[in-house]
């Protein structure tokens, strides 16, 4: 290797470090040069390092010395060498209030603390206001959501009711529809009901009034009386005390019925009445 190249690599090593290939090249040359190379490198190192003397000397604040000495008294017997230093440096990076290995960080000047405190207070205030605003906004959004859900539920309910009313009107307005009126027996004298049967659309709708909600495992069962024999026409369970609207799935039993009757039966209902009769009718 030419001397100029060796010098350039040496200065680069001392000032910036070398890339891996350059480092290998330089170390090989340094080894080849032996003691003379090491002496020359030491001479260059002194020259480069001497540039530090071009910086005007300056005194750190007195607290730095005390902090370092305090640290040495308490933690200075740690692991020596780069590994130990790396550990301390890591602690330094992790700590916001202390320096390496617990050395307190450089104290800021009073005005800086005041400024920092003012900024922190301002930020805290802004955060508090923002937090209150956020809570209010969240509250508003929740209220809006509840209102939307309520309106949606109302709308859904209204849509269901509207659809049911439309079907009821169709059934009631059908020229082929028949109506059965039922009245309460001595067991439920106030109860009454009407059944609309439309053979054209094969739909039947039962409206019930003043029938109480039944205990669990019991249902009301509608019977169509044909030729003196009861035929099961469907069951229902009012959820709204006293009232019910039931669309019957099968209209066949109702067609040609002489009379209708409602009894209380064990759930899910049977093929012959066994319980108390609460409503009975005659075709109107």
């Amino acid at each position, binding site marked *: 290797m030419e001397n*100029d190249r060796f*010098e*350039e690599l040496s*200065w*680069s090593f*001392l*000032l*910036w470090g070398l890339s891996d290939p350059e480092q290998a090249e330089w170390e090989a040359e340094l080894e080849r040069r032996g003691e003379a190379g*090491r002496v020359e490198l*030491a*001479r*260059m*190192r*002194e*020259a*480069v*390092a*001497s*540039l*530090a*003397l*071009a*910086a*005007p*000397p*300056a*005194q*750190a*604040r007195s607290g*730095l*010395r005390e*902090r*370092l*000495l305090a*640290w*040495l*008294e308490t933690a*200075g*017997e*740690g*692991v*020596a*060498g*780069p590994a*130990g*230093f790396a550990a*301390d*440096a890591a602690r*330094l990076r992790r700590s916001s209030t202390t*320096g*390496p*290995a617990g*050395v307190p*960080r*450089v104290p*800021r000047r009073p005005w800086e603390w005041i400024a920092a405190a003012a900024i922190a207070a301002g930020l805290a205030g802004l955060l508090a206001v923002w937090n209150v605003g956020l809570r209010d906004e969240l509250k508003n959004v929740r209220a809006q959501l509840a209102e939307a859900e309520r309106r949606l539920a109302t709308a859904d309910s209204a849509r269901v009711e509207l659809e049911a009313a439309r079907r009821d009107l169709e059934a009631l307005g059908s020229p082929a529809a028949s109506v059965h009126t039922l009245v309460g027996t001595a067991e439920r004298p106030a109860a009454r009901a009407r059944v609309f049967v439309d053979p054209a659309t094969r739909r039947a709708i039962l409206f019930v009034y003043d029938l109480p909600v039944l205990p669990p495992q019991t249902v009301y069962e509608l019977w169509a009386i044909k030729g003196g024999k009861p035929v099961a026409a469907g069951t229902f369970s009012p959820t709204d005390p006293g009232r019910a609207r039931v669309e019957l799935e099968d209209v066949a039993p109702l067609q040609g019925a002489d009379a209708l009757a409602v009894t209380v039966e064990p759930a899910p209902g049977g093929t012959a009445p066994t319980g108390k009769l609460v409503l009975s009718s005659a075709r109107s």
Partner: protein
Amino acid sequence: MEALIARLAARDTRAFASFYDRTVGFVFGLLLRILGDRDVAEEVAQEVYLQLWRTAGTFDAGRSSPLAWIATIARSRAIDRLRADASLRNAVHALAGQPGRVEPPTPEEETSLRERRARVLEALRSLPAEHRVAIELAFFEGLSHSEIARKTATPLGTVKTRIRAAIARLEQALDSLR
């Protein structure tokens, strides 16, 4: 100084106090010159003295002088901080292209350190301004050959020549002390 460093290696805290007193002006001056911010320089100074304490056992008087050992560690940590902190680097780079202030040695500079400093300052003053800018950008800002070439709009070869000439002049100045 070598004896002091040996005592640091032996974990002598009283030696550390003496070592600090004798070197802090030099170390802190260097850090302040590189970093340009007193608070940051003091934070890095803590790291430097910690590293000096930790690695004192590795000091080899046959490879470098105590001054070179200390300066190398201090500069390395300051350049690391400079590279890690873009705002610091931007502030320092605002001065790029201007050679640093070189104070004449004072009559009171009688110690060996001060004499060395006087020689270094004298050598730097004797350099052409562009040579001094190149070596200062390399040493105090850690800029590479190519970075200096871009920053000063100078051919790379010229930058290398200037740095080589500056270091050769410094070697001559130090040789005169031996």
